[in-house]
């Protein structure tokens, strides 16, 4: 009887979310994997024939024939990974000291700052990025301020560069780094710092021997949470990077919408998901071990 009641409870509690994820997450995923193995239709869509050359295409082995190896896709992949990695470093460098600072504030100020950090979520991402376009463009706020102050002679190009993309991505993903890092920093027991200095450690030694190791789970979680959306991001490079800073996200978008090569778009998506899956797997195993290590 008890087992049966447990089953009913589980079904009621987890049924809706399972159903939703099944239809809206697993379904499209399966469609994507199937499409990646079909022949591209001439004007978009797919022909229902098995066709694996879309995978070869990434390596320059399209349509079953070796062409001149084209670095372009590898380059886009690498650029995306590089920008995502730099973005992790930027957000970490911004959030870690900030989190340590917030930790020392009185409780109501801490709550207020966490609220401020999440405040941008209340405004549409596209609107916020257009604001950055207005700030960064040649006649925008940044250039006109610097010109007005006489710091520069003529407007410099910042929009449609990697710098602009990094600024935008760091801005968008900052909360994803701050919140997990802050959560782990906040849990630090103050007496550990006192114990460390009591035993003769300088504040730098304390930082590297106590603070960093104990907040590593937060740093790792924040890094994964920032790296993955950075890697697949297409809105930020689209608005702030223009045509010059193409990332995987944009490439996939192009394949589906402009080039109308759905299977190749699907292949790129599958590849990217594989990379992310791998990263999450590594993360879970490392963190899992960190917390239960004997």
């Amino acid at each position: 009887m008890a087992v049966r009641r447990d089953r009913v409870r589980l079904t009621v509690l987890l049924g809706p979310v399972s159903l939703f994820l099944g239809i809206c997450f697993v379904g499209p995923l399966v469609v994507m994997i199937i499409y990646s193995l079909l022949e591209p239709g001439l004007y978009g869509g797919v022909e229902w024939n098995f066709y694996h050359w879309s995978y070869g295409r990434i390596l320059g082995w399209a349509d079953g024939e070796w062409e001149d190896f084209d670095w372009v896709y590898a380059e886009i992949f690498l650029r995306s990974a590089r920008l995502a990695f730099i973005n992790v470093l930027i957000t970490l460098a911004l959030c870690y000291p900030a989190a340590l600072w917030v930790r020392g504030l009185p409780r109501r100020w801490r709550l207020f700052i966490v609220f401020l950090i999440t405040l941008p979520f209340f405004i549409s991402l596209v609107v916020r990025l257009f604001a950055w376009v207005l700030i960064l463009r040649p006649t925008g706020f940044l250039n006109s301020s610097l010109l007005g102050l006489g710091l520069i002679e003529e407007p410099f190009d910042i929009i449609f560069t990697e710098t602009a993309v990094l600024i935008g991505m760091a801005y968008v993903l900052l909360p994803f780094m701050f919140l997990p890092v802050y959560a782990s920093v906040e849990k630090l027991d103050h007496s550990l710092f006192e114990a460390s200095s009591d035993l003769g450690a300088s504040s730098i030694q304390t930082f590297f021997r106590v603070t960093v190791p104990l907040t590593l789970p937060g740093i790792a979680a924040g890094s994964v949470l920032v790296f993955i959306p950075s890697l697949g991001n297409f809105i930020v490079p689209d608005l702030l990077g223009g045509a010059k800073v193409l990332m995987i996200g944009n490439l996939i978008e192009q394949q589906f919408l402009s080039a109308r090569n759905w299977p190749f778009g699907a292949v790129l998506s599958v590849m990217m998901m594989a990379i992310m899956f791998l990263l999450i797997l590594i993360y879970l195993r490392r963190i899992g071990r960190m917390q239960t290590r004997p």
Partner: protein
Amino acid sequence: MRDAGSPGSGSPVAEVFDAVKRFTAPEGGTVTALDQVSLAVSAGEFVTLLGPSGCGKTTLLRCISGFEDLDSGEVRIDGTPMTGVPAQHRPVNTVFQTYALFPHLRVEANVAYGLEVTGVPRRERVERVAQALEQVGLQGLERRKPDQLSGGQRQRVALARAIINRPALLLLDEPLSALDRNLRHSMQLELKTLQHELGICFLFVTHDQEEALTMSDRIVVLNHGRIEQIGTPEQLYHTPATTFVAEFIGDGALFSGTVEGGPDPAIVTGDGLRLTIRDGVPAGRRMTMLLRPEQLDAAPAAADPAFGIVEATLEQSVFYGATRQLVCRLASGAALTVTPSPGGEGDRLYRAEPGDLLRLAYRRAEPHLIEEAHDGG
């Protein structure tokens, strides 16, 4: 061995001069945590700071370890003034109330921490860690993480970690308060033994008077940021300087009143109770008499001028194994506890029933008298 009784014996390892520390209270205003506190700890001494919570004992400890700065006054360790010296450079180590073990480090790394950060070579480190773990009886647990240890084991790790730097003075902030009663008692004795072996001064903070009496060479009783009395456990128990100390340490009843002279000198309290006292106390003084439970016994059948007599109604008779404690009430309403000695007259008290009127006696030379003028509180 040194004479535990006299504070001046040996060279002082740590001295505190006129320490004053004020905090701003959250609701505004200032709280004086330390008010003109001075004390000296001699080499090899076990000194306890005893007082109720909020008396300033932990603040004093934190000012010595360097986590707090004094507003005025000075801390000296081995004769060197510590003002402006950060915690990391002070030759003292602390055992924290919550132990504050590094959760990410194994036992051996926790213990070695102080050696590592001060750059002690590896070979020496390994030796000293092994030695420290042996001293606290933790061999075999080197590879454990703190969360795989029991409370008592954690306590020992904290102790080993704190003694490994060979501090001049070891500060212990209520280190036993998280342990259960039995473990606590055995740790008290162990700490005392360890302190003798190491020859390090211990400055121990507690609010538990029994703990303080068991372990200390000298006890510093603090109340409201002031020192009430410094003395050996015996001195504090038998001759408390203030009514606060008398109430805080041991059981006993206090009777305040005016001294009446004559052939039968006594204290007369506000509610008319007359208690015989020893000879030679000037009449007219305001005095407080301390009656310890063991000083009272059944009154002798024949009148004897050596004894003072009190009459009290028995409320409860509690069996404690070797002794029995009688909780009585005087006609004035004041409570009085008595632990009569078994055999002889005391047997009569052992058989008494609640509600019985008991005639109790004490040797009038015995009870300690506290002069009101001395009473700072």
